[in-house]
């Protein structure tokens, strides 16, 4: 069953790229097999956890050996404005004996204890490699627990070995679709309710566009799943439109919500000024199509005009200092293309973008923004090659995640974090200004002159 689901997820018909493919190509799917022996990213379990853990008020229980939770416990700067239950690491800590005897009973008891202690609105149970290999039926245990304990217990069947982090994101969405969304009926559904899919509130980015929506009278019914509460997500089928941010991750969920509840969706981004404006326009358009007051359109344009003018004024002083500076983007997914435009808007040149964890759709968007230059699309780059790029001056700075930062820094190259450990939000107009400020602070920091100079006695 899981296999079938995976095949389906990897052949997403909702994806624009897939729709353009031949039958044969479609069959291969957009998943990509990994190279044994090369450094790789996270697994499907990691991906599912990333996609769901931002739901802040539930218990996230990992059914596996200690390390799956021990290693992943609160490793992302995904913020909450309320409960911090999500930051606690729950696990069944499967050991030798469980592997022989099976872990289903242990899992059931752990669920029971977690509910007794924390009284959460729901429990999410994550399957892992070990739980899966020893044949524990997580779906069945969760079903039994839900019935007997009266609290929804959601199985997330995404053991690490089934594939990449990206696949895990999708399996996480699948769990929401099957077990959560539509289980609560709100009494206040309105014509301006939307959901945002694939936004995890890393460094509080949600709150860089939530106020913009609020000013337009648009209500964020649920963010899936940054800073979310369980019951918000459960009731989000009443929204009038969905915006998919990290399309590779949750576009399948959006498609299924459209099929089941008729909610239209579009793929967009809040990185960069024009992308932000486009996103707001699209939201307004879709809401109006579904019955919102047509004045929303004018109000949206007014807000865009005001905010863009402000943002450009703020960015002006940076332009001269950043023009022509060469950036290597080493990230993945939506950021492999969405950030390109943001950087180009202040006159920077993107010399390469890694599309490691990106879908074909992501890749084609990135390619378009890079002027069709295929050479600029990089796959994984080994540390040695990356170091050479910086040493040879092919890039002036890198934007990436924490694991690769030290290669740039060793090569005395400015770096800023745009992945999950970042401490600044970069979304929407304010975030764009923040991003540019961080880039400026970093690339123009006087430390680089210092750091790049060899010991002065080496010169003499």
């Amino acid at each position, binding site marked *: 069953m899981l296999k079938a689901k995976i095949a389906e997820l990897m052949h997403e018909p909702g994806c624009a790229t897939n729709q353009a493919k031949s039958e044969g190509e479609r069959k291969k799917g957009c998943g990509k097999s990994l190279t044994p*022996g090369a450094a790789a990213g996270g697994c499907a379990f990691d991906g599912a956890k990333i996609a769901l853990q931002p739901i802040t008020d539930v218990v996230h229980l990992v059914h596996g050996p200690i390390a799956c939770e021990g290693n992943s416990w609160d490793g992302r700067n995904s913020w909450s404005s309320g409960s911090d239950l999500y930051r606690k690491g729950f696990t069944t800590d499967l050991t030798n004996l469980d592997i022989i005897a099976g872990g289903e009973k242990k899992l059931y008891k752990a669920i029971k204890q977690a509910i007794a202690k924390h009284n959460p609105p729901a429990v999410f149970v994550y399957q892992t490699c070990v739980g899966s290999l020893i044949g524990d039926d997580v779906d069945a245990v969760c079903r039994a627990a839900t019935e007997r304990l009266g609290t929804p217990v959601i199985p997330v069947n995404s053991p690490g070995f089934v594939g990449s982090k990206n696949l895990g994101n999708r399996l996480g969405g699948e769990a929401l679709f099957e077990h959560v969304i539509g289980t609560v009926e709100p009494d206040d559904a309105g014509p301006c309710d939307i959901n945002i899919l694939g936004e995890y509130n890393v460094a509080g980015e949600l709150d860089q566009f939530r106020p913009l929506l609020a000013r337009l009278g648009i209500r964020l019914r649920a963010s899936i799943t940054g800073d979310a509460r369980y019951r918000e997500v459960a009731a989000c089928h009443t929204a009038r439109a969905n915006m998919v941010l990290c399309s590779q991750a949750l576009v399948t969920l959006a498609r299924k919500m459209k099929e089941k509840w008729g909610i239209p969706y579009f793929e967009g981004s809040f990185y960069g000024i024009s992308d932000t404006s486009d996103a707001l326009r699209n939201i307004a358009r879709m809401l109006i199509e579904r019955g919102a007051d047509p004045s929303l359109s004018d109000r949206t344009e007014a807000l865009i005009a005001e905010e863009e003018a402000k943002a450009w004024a703020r960015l002006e002083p940076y332009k001269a200092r950043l023009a022509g500076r060469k950036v290597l983007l080493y990230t993945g997914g939506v950021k492999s293309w969405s950030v390109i435009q943001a950087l180009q808007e202040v006159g920077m040149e993107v010399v390469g973008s890694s599309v490691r964890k990106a879908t074909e759709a992501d890749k084609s968007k990135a390619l378009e923004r890079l002027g069709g230059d295929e050479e600029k699309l990089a796959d994984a780059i080994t540390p040695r090659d990356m170091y050479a790029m910086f040493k040879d001056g092919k890039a002036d700075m890198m934007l990436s995640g924490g694991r690769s930062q030290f290669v740039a820094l060793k090569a005395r190259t400015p770096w800023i974090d745009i992945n999950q450990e970042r401490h600044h939000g970069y979304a929407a107009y304010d975030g764009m200004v923040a991003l540019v400020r961080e880039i400026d602070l970093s690339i123009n920091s006087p430390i680089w002159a210092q750091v*790049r100079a060899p010991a002065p006695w080496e010169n003499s």
Partner: protein
Amino acid sequence: MPQSAENIKDHISLFSEPEYKELLAQKKANYECRPSDEKVNEQLEYSKSWEYREKNFARKQAVINPHKACQPLGAVFAAAGFEETLPYVHGSQGCAAYFRSHLARHFKEASACVSDSMTEDAAVFGGLNNLVEGLLNAKHLYKPKMIAVSTTCMAEVIGDDLSAFIATAKEKEAVPTDFPVPFAHTPSFVGSHVVGYDNMIKGIFNYFWDREKGEVKPGKSNGKINIIPGFDGYAVANNRELKRYLDTMGVDYTLVGDVSEVFDTPTDGTFRMYDGGTKLDDVRDAINAKATIGLQHYCSDKTLEYVASKGQATASLNYPMGVSGTDAMLMKISELSGKAIPEAIEKERGRLVDAIADSQGWTHGKKAAVFGDPDFVLSMASFLLELGIEPTHCLCTNAGKEWEAQMKALLAASPFGADCQVWAGKDLWHLRSLLFTEPTDMIIGSSYGKYLEKDTGIPLIRLTFPVFDRHHHHRFPTMGYQGALRTLVEILDRIFEVADASSDISYDLTR
């Protein structure tokens, strides 16, 4: 609007702005369908009670906030300490990504580690193909001198046989026959990273002593002492401090698994895929040493047993920290090497004792909770007793009965140990209950303790792996007399900070 370009607020202050406060309050009131604040607070208060503590300790099936990592993390750390060695994980790629993140976040250095990305197919048919292809690719891509293989749960559950698989891979010329590929089976569901460390060091010895050219017999003594530091987040500075002691004493040694250069490479314009590490030839020769000392008992149990089986003298210590911990190490080294402890080192000892005496008025009678790996907790507790601080709660998720007995003996030997409690196999959610019901003046542990600090208001002192949220601490030693001095200062600084923060009237200039 919340942000203005003239004054961009970072996240730390942004959410204190009035518009955000209102926004979040509204969201809470209208959308979250949550229980009332009153109820939430009631529940919160209850979770601080003795009653809850008892329920919490009755918990058997769920582990909440465990403070341990898995075997392969320890194996990867151990493997990283050898000359141009690539740590390789046979199993899911996600695990390897975790290990790299974990080590990079702590050491602020890139961490090399690859996996052979086993998938569902491998789960059914076994991971042989992945291993063969993986070794080939890894050697080609990263050009190591040695590849050290450990396993994830997945490979263990399906029962892959590394010894046979590696032999097949060599037959298939994935790597040359004489290319070192030591291995260790490291199932995550047994033991923890300290056991994985032990397994990998043993695996590496075993490769050079028994498998590279068949069984090697010890030859003429090379006069050296082998030292196995164990899994240690402060290894960068501690290994250097150890070498300084050994050099000062004139002892010839091999530090087995020396990560001090690996996780502290300079930024000087040279690319280093590998740096430092124990020379492979030194490992080959280590069989001829006078003796092998493990500095962390729980990290070298099996290795020492194996070394002893080769007829070599062995000794096992518990993280040489504090006065008596360092004394014990120096004396053991002196005994086994036949070299005296020089006066310069004795003077350092005297200076540490002097500092302890100077500050006794501030340390005496204080209470501390300690958590971390078994050797660390043991040695930290011992040092605290030397300072007159009561280690009220000693908690170790990855320890068992042997450790518990050892801890209890330590505490029983001190007049300040009477009220101290030992908690083997408990997690940080247990510790939370302990701290609410029997509070201490400080918590000593890792960055994971910051949530305890926030919940309980008891200051955290970061002194063990992992330290993710402070930079460069591992570049200063915790072992030896200098390390103890630094540890003392860390403790005192927090004591003084609390004194300053909580006193308005007695905000004194001299302390």
